[in-house]
Protein backbone atom coordinates (compact mmCIF):
# COMPACT_ATOMS: atom_id res chain seq x y z
CA UNK A 1 0.00 0.00 0.00
CA UNK A 2 1.69 3.16 -1.11
CA UNK A 3 1.02 6.50 0.45
CA UNK A 4 -0.12 8.09 -2.76
CA UNK A 5 -2.86 5.50 -3.03
CA UNK A 6 -4.02 6.17 0.49
CA UNK A 7 -4.17 9.87 -0.14
CA UNK A 8 -6.60 9.66 -2.99
CA UNK A 9 -10.18 10.11 -1.93
CA UNK A 10 -12.49 8.13 -4.18
CA UNK A 11 -14.80 11.05 -4.70
CA UNK A 12 -12.20 12.83 -6.74
CA UNK A 13 -11.57 9.96 -9.12
CA UNK A 14 -13.98 7.74 -10.90
CA UNK A 15 -13.63 4.00 -11.21
CA UNK A 16 -12.13 3.36 -7.84
CA UNK A 17 -12.99 -0.08 -6.51
CA UNK A 18 -13.29 0.03 -2.74
CA UNK A 19 -12.06 -3.18 -1.15
CA UNK A 20 -10.96 -5.99 -3.42
CA UNK A 21 -12.52 -8.26 -6.01
CA UNK A 22 -12.77 -11.17 -3.60
CA UNK A 23 -14.93 -9.20 -1.16
CA UNK A 24 -17.19 -7.94 -3.92
CA UNK A 25 -17.58 -11.49 -5.17
CA UNK A 26 -18.71 -12.41 -1.68
CA UNK A 27 -21.04 -9.43 -1.32
CA UNK A 28 -22.75 -9.84 -4.67
CA UNK A 29 -23.14 -13.58 -4.02
CA UNK A 30 -24.51 -12.96 -0.55
CA UNK A 31 -26.98 -10.42 -1.90
CA UNK A 32 -28.10 -12.95 -4.51
CA UNK A 33 -28.48 -15.73 -1.93
CA UNK A 34 -30.53 -13.51 0.33
CA UNK A 35 -32.49 -12.34 -2.71
CA UNK A 36 -33.49 -15.93 -3.44
CA UNK A 37 -34.54 -16.43 0.17
CA UNK A 38 -36.64 -13.24 0.04
CA UNK A 39 -38.32 -14.26 -3.18
CA UNK A 40 -39.16 -17.69 -1.76
CA UNK A 41 -40.52 -15.91 1.28
CA UNK A 42 -42.86 -13.91 -0.92
CA UNK A 43 -44.10 -17.06 -2.62
CA UNK A 44 -44.80 -18.87 0.66
CA UNK A 45 -46.29 -15.72 2.13
CA UNK A 46 -48.70 -15.46 -0.75
CA UNK A 47 -49.68 -19.11 -0.35
CA UNK A 48 -50.31 -18.77 3.40
CA UNK A 49 -51.35 -15.16 3.59
CA UNK A 50 -53.64 -15.65 6.59
CA UNK A 51 -51.00 -17.32 8.70
CA UNK A 52 -48.35 -14.79 7.77
CA UNK A 53 -50.53 -11.73 8.38
CA UNK A 54 -51.79 -13.15 11.65
CA UNK A 55 -48.28 -13.92 12.88
CA UNK A 56 -46.83 -10.64 11.68
CA UNK A 57 -48.80 -8.70 14.28
CA UNK A 58 -46.71 -10.29 17.04
CA UNK A 59 -43.45 -8.81 15.75
CA UNK A 60 -42.04 -5.83 17.62
CA UNK A 61 -41.94 -3.19 14.91
CA UNK A 62 -40.54 -0.65 17.36
CA UNK A 63 -37.44 -2.72 18.09
CA UNK A 64 -37.09 -3.49 14.38
CA UNK A 65 -37.08 0.20 13.50
CA UNK A 66 -34.77 1.02 16.40
CA UNK A 67 -32.36 -1.64 15.18
CA UNK A 68 -32.52 -0.14 11.71
CA UNK A 69 -31.51 3.24 13.02
CA UNK A 70 -28.75 1.59 15.07
CA UNK A 71 -27.34 -0.17 12.01
CA UNK A 72 -27.65 2.89 9.78
CA UNK A 73 -25.84 5.05 12.30
CA UNK A 74 -23.16 2.43 12.78
CA UNK A 75 -22.75 2.28 9.02
CA UNK A 76 -22.44 6.05 8.85
CA UNK A 77 -19.62 5.97 11.39
CA UNK A 78 -17.84 3.23 9.46
CA UNK A 79 -18.18 5.24 6.24
CA UNK A 80 -16.85 8.37 7.97
CA UNK A 81 -14.02 6.33 9.47
CA UNK A 82 -13.04 5.05 6.04
CA UNK A 83 -12.87 8.60 4.75
CA UNK A 84 -10.87 9.68 7.78
CA UNK A 85 -8.32 6.92 7.15
CA UNK A 86 -7.94 8.11 3.59
CA UNK A 87 -7.32 11.62 4.87
CA UNK A 88 -4.74 10.27 7.37
CA UNK A 89 -6.84 11.27 10.35
CA UNK A 90 -6.06 7.97 12.05
CA UNK A 91 -7.03 9.07 15.53
CA UNK A 92 -10.40 10.32 14.31
CA UNK A 93 -10.91 7.14 12.36
CA UNK A 94 -10.23 5.06 15.49
CA UNK A 95 -12.81 7.01 17.45
CA UNK A 96 -15.43 6.77 14.72
CA UNK A 97 -14.81 3.07 14.34
CA UNK A 98 -15.12 2.53 18.10
CA UNK A 99 -18.47 4.29 18.02
CA UNK A 100 -19.53 2.12 15.11
CA UNK A 101 -18.57 -1.03 17.05
CA UNK A 102 -20.45 0.10 20.16
CA UNK A 103 -23.56 0.78 18.10
CA UNK A 104 -23.13 -2.45 16.18
CA UNK A 105 -22.88 -4.36 19.44
CA UNK A 106 -26.22 -2.84 20.43
CA UNK A 107 -27.86 -4.71 17.57
CA UNK A 108 -27.52 -8.23 19.02
CA UNK A 109 -28.60 -6.91 22.42
CA UNK A 110 -31.78 -5.44 20.98
CA UNK A 111 -32.29 -8.66 19.03
CA UNK A 112 -32.24 -10.61 22.27
CA UNK A 113 -34.66 -8.13 23.83
CA UNK A 114 -36.87 -8.85 20.85
CA UNK A 115 -36.45 -12.61 20.68
CA UNK A 116 -36.56 -13.72 24.30
CA UNK A 117 -40.08 -12.42 25.16
CA UNK A 118 -41.26 -13.80 21.84
CA UNK A 119 -39.91 -17.26 22.57
CA UNK A 120 -41.28 -17.19 26.13
CA UNK A 121 -44.66 -16.24 24.70
CA UNK A 122 -44.56 -19.42 22.66
CA UNK A 123 -43.69 -17.93 19.29
CA UNK A 124 -40.97 -20.43 18.50
CA UNK A 125 -39.67 -21.46 15.08
CA UNK A 126 -41.88 -24.53 15.33
CA UNK A 127 -45.07 -22.49 15.58
CA UNK A 128 -45.61 -21.95 11.88
CA UNK A 129 -43.84 -21.21 8.64
CA UNK A 130 -43.80 -17.47 9.25
CA UNK A 131 -41.97 -17.75 12.54
CA UNK A 132 -39.59 -20.33 11.12
CA UNK A 133 -38.78 -17.93 8.32
CA UNK A 134 -38.53 -15.05 10.73
CA UNK A 135 -36.05 -16.78 13.06
CA UNK A 136 -34.00 -18.28 10.24
CA UNK A 137 -33.62 -15.03 8.34
CA UNK A 138 -33.06 -12.77 11.33
CA UNK A 139 -30.74 -15.42 12.77
CA UNK A 140 -28.76 -15.65 9.57
CA UNK A 141 -28.55 -11.89 9.51
CA UNK A 142 -27.49 -11.83 13.14
CA UNK A 143 -24.69 -14.21 12.23
CA UNK A 144 -23.55 -11.69 9.63
CA UNK A 145 -23.70 -8.94 12.24
CA UNK A 146 -21.56 -10.93 14.67
CA UNK A 147 -19.04 -11.69 11.95
CA UNK A 148 -19.04 -7.97 11.06
CA UNK A 149 -18.32 -7.05 14.67
CA UNK A 150 -15.32 -9.39 14.69
CA UNK A 151 -14.06 -7.88 11.45
CA UNK A 152 -14.48 -4.35 12.84
CA UNK A 153 -12.55 -5.30 15.96
CA UNK A 154 -9.66 -6.35 13.72
CA UNK A 155 -10.03 -3.11 11.76
CA UNK A 156 -9.74 -1.13 14.96
CA UNK A 157 -6.67 -3.11 15.97
CA UNK A 158 -5.15 -2.38 12.60
CA UNK A 159 -5.81 1.35 13.07
CA UNK A 160 -4.41 1.40 16.56
CA UNK A 161 -1.34 -0.76 16.10
CA UNK A 162 -0.16 -0.68 12.54
CA UNK A 163 2.26 2.07 11.54
CA UNK A 164 0.43 2.48 8.26
CA UNK A 165 -3.20 1.36 8.35
CA UNK A 166 -4.12 -1.15 5.70
CA UNK A 167 -6.70 0.87 3.76
CA UNK A 168 -7.77 -2.06 1.63
CA UNK A 169 -8.58 -4.07 4.72
CA UNK A 170 -10.51 -1.14 6.22
CA UNK A 171 -12.49 -0.85 2.99
CA UNK A 172 -13.20 -4.56 2.87
CA UNK A 173 -14.58 -4.48 6.39
CA UNK A 174 -16.56 -1.33 5.67
CA UNK A 175 -18.32 -2.58 2.56
CA UNK A 176 -19.11 -5.83 4.35
CA UNK A 177 -20.71 -3.88 7.18
CA UNK A 178 -22.75 -1.79 4.74
CA UNK A 179 -23.96 -4.97 3.07
CA UNK A 180 -25.19 -6.21 6.46
CA UNK A 181 -27.05 -2.91 6.64
CA UNK A 182 -28.64 -3.35 3.20
CA UNK A 183 -29.82 -6.86 4.07
CA UNK A 184 -31.44 -5.60 7.24
CA UNK A 185 -33.28 -2.88 5.31
CA UNK A 186 -34.91 -5.54 3.14
CA UNK A 187 -35.64 -7.71 6.17
CA UNK A 188 -37.36 -4.82 7.91
CA UNK A 189 -39.56 -4.16 4.90
CA UNK A 190 -40.65 -7.70 4.14
CA UNK A 191 -40.96 -9.10 7.67
CA UNK A 192 -42.04 -6.17 9.81
CA UNK A 193 -43.71 -3.58 7.69
CA UNK A 194 -45.37 -4.85 4.52
CA UNK A 195 -48.87 -6.27 4.50
Amino acid sequence: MTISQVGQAPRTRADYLPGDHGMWFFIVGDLLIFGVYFLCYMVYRGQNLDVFLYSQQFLSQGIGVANTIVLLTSSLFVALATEAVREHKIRDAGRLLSLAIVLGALFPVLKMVEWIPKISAGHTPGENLFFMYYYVMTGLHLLHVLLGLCIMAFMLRNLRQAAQPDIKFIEIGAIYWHMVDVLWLVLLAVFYLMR
Partner: protein
Amino acid sequence: MIAYLKNPLTTVWAILSLITVAAWLIGRNVGTDLQPSHAVTLSVLLIAAAKAQLVIMYFMEVRSAPRWLKRVAYGWVLVLFPLLYLTNQLVN
Protein backbone atom coordinates in the same frame (compact mmCIF):
# COMPACT_ATOMS: atom_id res chain seq x y z
CA MET B 1 -17.07 17.57 14.59
CA ILE B 2 -18.83 20.20 12.49
CA ALA B 3 -16.99 18.85 9.49
CA TYR B 4 -18.59 15.46 10.07
CA LEU B 5 -22.02 17.03 10.37
CA LYS B 6 -21.51 18.81 7.08
CA ASN B 7 -20.24 15.69 5.38
CA PRO B 8 -22.59 14.52 2.59
CA LEU B 9 -22.59 11.08 4.18
CA THR B 10 -24.30 12.53 7.22
CA THR B 11 -26.98 14.02 5.01
CA VAL B 12 -27.51 10.63 3.42
CA TRP B 13 -27.78 9.10 6.88
CA ALA B 14 -30.38 11.69 7.90
CA ILE B 15 -32.47 10.92 4.83
CA LEU B 16 -32.18 7.19 5.50
CA SER B 17 -33.29 7.58 9.09
CA LEU B 18 -36.16 9.83 8.18
CA ILE B 19 -37.58 7.56 5.55
CA THR B 20 -37.15 4.60 7.86
CA VAL B 21 -39.42 6.33 10.34
CA ALA B 22 -41.76 7.26 7.50
CA ALA B 23 -41.95 3.64 6.45
CA TRP B 24 -42.71 2.70 10.02
CA LEU B 25 -45.52 5.21 10.20
CA ILE B 26 -46.97 3.82 6.99
CA GLY B 27 -46.66 0.18 7.95
CA ARG B 28 -47.31 0.60 11.66
CA ASN B 29 -49.41 -2.07 13.20
CA VAL B 30 -52.19 -0.26 15.05
CA GLY B 31 -54.92 -2.79 15.47
CA THR B 32 -54.48 -6.47 16.20
CA ASP B 33 -55.81 -7.80 12.93
CA LEU B 34 -53.67 -6.93 9.97
CA GLN B 35 -55.42 -6.56 6.66
CA PRO B 36 -53.48 -7.03 3.45
CA SER B 37 -52.84 -3.63 1.97
CA HIS B 38 -51.55 -3.00 -1.49
CA ALA B 39 -50.68 0.61 -0.76
CA VAL B 40 -48.66 -0.21 2.37
CA THR B 41 -46.74 -3.01 0.65
CA LEU B 42 -45.92 -0.90 -2.36
CA SER B 43 -44.75 2.13 -0.39
CA VAL B 44 -42.78 0.06 2.13
CA LEU B 45 -41.00 -1.79 -0.67
CA LEU B 46 -40.33 1.44 -2.55
CA ILE B 47 -38.82 3.03 0.54
CA ALA B 48 -36.71 -0.06 1.20
CA ALA B 49 -35.47 0.00 -2.38
CA ALA B 50 -34.57 3.67 -2.07
CA LYS B 51 -32.72 3.03 1.18
CA ALA B 52 -30.81 0.06 -0.23
CA GLN B 53 -29.87 2.13 -3.25
CA LEU B 54 -28.65 5.01 -1.08
CA VAL B 55 -26.54 2.75 1.12
CA ILE B 56 -25.05 1.03 -1.90
CA MET B 57 -24.33 4.29 -3.70
CA TYR B 58 -22.94 6.40 -0.89
CA PHE B 59 -21.80 4.14 1.94
CA MET B 60 -20.47 1.35 -0.20
CA GLU B 61 -19.12 3.94 -2.65
CA VAL B 62 -20.45 2.16 -5.68
CA ARG B 63 -21.23 5.61 -7.09
CA SER B 64 -17.59 6.08 -7.97
CA ALA B 65 -16.82 2.42 -8.62
CA PRO B 66 -16.10 0.81 -12.00
CA ARG B 67 -19.02 0.42 -14.31
CA TRP B 68 -19.37 -3.37 -13.97
CA LEU B 69 -19.88 -3.03 -10.25
CA LYS B 70 -22.43 -0.27 -10.71
CA ARG B 71 -24.36 -2.48 -13.08
CA VAL B 72 -24.31 -5.45 -10.76
CA ALA B 73 -25.12 -3.60 -7.54
CA TYR B 74 -27.78 -1.29 -8.96
CA GLY B 75 -29.09 -4.21 -10.95
CA TRP B 76 -29.64 -6.14 -7.74
CA VAL B 77 -31.85 -3.37 -6.37
CA LEU B 78 -33.62 -2.82 -9.68
CA VAL B 79 -34.39 -6.49 -10.16
CA LEU B 80 -35.01 -7.70 -6.62
CA PHE B 81 -37.55 -5.16 -5.46
CA PRO B 82 -39.83 -5.26 -8.50
CA LEU B 83 -39.62 -9.04 -8.36
CA LEU B 84 -40.58 -9.05 -4.70
CA TYR B 85 -43.50 -6.78 -5.47
CA LEU B 86 -44.62 -8.79 -8.48
CA THR B 87 -44.33 -12.11 -6.65
CA ASN B 88 -46.41 -10.74 -3.87
CA GLN B 89 -49.05 -9.53 -6.31
CA LEU B 90 -49.11 -12.66 -8.44
CA VAL B 91 -49.15 -15.33 -5.78
CA ASN B 92 -51.95 -13.72 -3.79
